[in-house]
């Protein structure tokens, strides 16, 4: 059965990679991915680089955050997994008026100054503040690295 034609928004600082293409899209039968990043959309080299990530039956579109914010206002023609790098990008989508209701947090990896929230979520004080801000705006943040992983309420994890 084809997956529902809806947006799935994922936050992952590795953007599009094996876990996204194989672990999510191949498992759920999602053929369309969107990588939304203002730097990458303007880089021929990086677009070429990420274009090698999707599997044979998948295709990857590149958007800036403004374009994704606009796209999110209408249901997609097919199930689409859109990836953004982190909480800063999510906040930008909200500023642009995107109707974001839920974001799946798939990976925010360790970096200087970050505290560990789960084995796949590490947040700096700034990122934590941004995530909490998203929560106050009514965004449901769900920790879920893979489709079969339990959905974890990130608000509860942040405390």
């Amino acid at each position, binding site marked *: 059965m084809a997956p529902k034609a809806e947006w799935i928004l994922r936050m992952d600082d590795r953007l599009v990679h*094996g876990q996204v293409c194989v672990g999510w899209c191949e498992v759920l039968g999602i053929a369309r991915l969107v990588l939304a990043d203002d730097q990458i959309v303007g880089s021929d080299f990086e677009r070429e680089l990420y274009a090698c990530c999707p599997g044979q039956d998948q295709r990857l579109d590149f958007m800036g955050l403004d374009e994704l914010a606009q796209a999110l206002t209408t249901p997609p023609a097919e199930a689409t997994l859109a990836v953004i790098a982190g909480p800063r990008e999510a906040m930008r989508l909200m500023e642009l008026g995107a109707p974001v209701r839920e974001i799946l947090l798939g990976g925010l990896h360790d*970096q200087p100054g970050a505290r560990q929230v789960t084995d796949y979520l590490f947040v700096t004080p700034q990122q934590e503040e941004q995530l909490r801000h998203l929560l106050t705006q009514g965004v449901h943040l769900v920790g879920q690295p893979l489709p079969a992983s339990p959905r974890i309420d990130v608000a509860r994890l942040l405390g």
Partner: protein
Amino acid sequence: MSATLHMLLITHGQLGAELLRTAALILGPRENVDALSNDGLSREGLIDAVLGRLEALPEDASLLLLVDAPGASPHLACRLALARQPLERRERLHGPITGVNLPLLLTAINRRESTPVEDMLPLLLDRGRAGILLAD
């Protein structure tokens, strides 16, 4: 061919380290063959880790890069790190070859001192692919 073809496996988890450990069981321990894992590293963290390894390469050495899956974060980080290399070092860096498996790795270790790199790259592709059979 120079005896200083170093090799670096960049993989998910401990795949690279275990491939090297297994190769050492078969061929004996070898120098200048290392593994780097993407475990816990962000996109930039992995790129920085690869950059560190490239910058540590001795000036007279060449390096063959091997990664696990095409399009996965080790592959992408490798490409991004290579793009940031000065021309002088870039000419001594080869690959990455994706899909590293044991047959490919054993061939690379065995042949790196005797085979020019321009001949070895297609040989490794051939040996890696030839190692995948329906052997029933």
